[in-house]
């Protein structure tokens, strides 16, 4: 049966265009057992080359934030604040864990915030993410580095996290 995506998921698919980069094999983590069948968020695609970010400042209900979007092959011409530099590096580090289905991030002033989404993570897997948070916060004490983990537990992405105007860095996790 072909799954119909919600409008938000369609938008995110168009925004991300391709799956995230990386050629390393998936980490050998076994997901915890679930009561609900696994529902892939987005179609499977082949791994792509490293993607470049394009940032723009937008006014949102939460204030002036930096919206990040993915442009394959593009280079950013926007002046990057320290928090934006940290955010991109943080997203890269989280992607390297190969645990997440989607990553949403935004910069607001000196805050670099990431919402990391997966269907279900074990405590060991979550610890791997928290250690990234620890590492980045220690390395960048002048930036507020914050990771929030949201687990879908079988729910649709639109039920877990709505784009309320915050900046989005959407990734597709290439499932093998």
């Amino acid at each position: 049966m072909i799954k119909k995506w919600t409008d938000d998921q369609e938008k995110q698919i168009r925004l991300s265009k391709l799956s995230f980069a990386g050629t390393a094999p998936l980490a050998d983590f076994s997901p915890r057992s679930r009561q609900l069948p696994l529902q892939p968020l987005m179609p499977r695609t082949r791994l792509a080359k490293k993607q470049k970010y394009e940032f723009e400042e937008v006014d949102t209900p939460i204030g002036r934030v930096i919206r990040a979007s993915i442009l394959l092959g593009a280079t950013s011409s926007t002046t990057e604040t320290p928090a934006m530099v940290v955010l991109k590096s943080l997203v890269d580090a989280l992607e390297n864990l190969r645990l997440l289905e989607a990553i949403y991030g935004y910069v607001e002033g000196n805050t670099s915030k990431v919402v990391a989404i997966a269907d279900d993570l074990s405590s060991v897997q979550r610890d791997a993410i928290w250690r990234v948070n620890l590492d980045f916060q220690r390395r960048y004490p002048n930036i507020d580095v914050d990771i929030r983990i949201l687990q879908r537990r079988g729910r649709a992405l639109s039920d877990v996290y709505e784009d309320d105007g915050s900046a989005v860095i959407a990734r597709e996790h290439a499932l093998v």
Partner: protein
Amino acid sequence: MPKESAHQTQWYSNGLILDDLVNANRFPDWITIAAFYKALHSIERLLARHKEHPKSHAERRKILSQTKYQTLLTAQIVTDYFDMYNASLDARYECIIPTTTDVNDQLARLARIDAKVASIP
């Protein structure tokens, strides 16, 4: 700002509520939340001893991320605290009912935090 002794009292009080909830075997979301707040005051006892008085969760996160506290507490204890906070947010705002595994994870993390803080002179 509360002294170490005040945090100790709050830690103990939160523990009583947590024990009642666990014994009743009901409201896993509130067990998760109560466990987090017990852990918070365990950490705050230690921070107060070092003249640190964070005014927000973000400030506490920054303080705990410092090398000094990762060494004193160990990185595992700090990640335990981060995970407990995240779980409490799920229970409070995401309407996620913790599973038995989630609750056991939360209580195990609390036990590690309490044991570690108690062992630090």
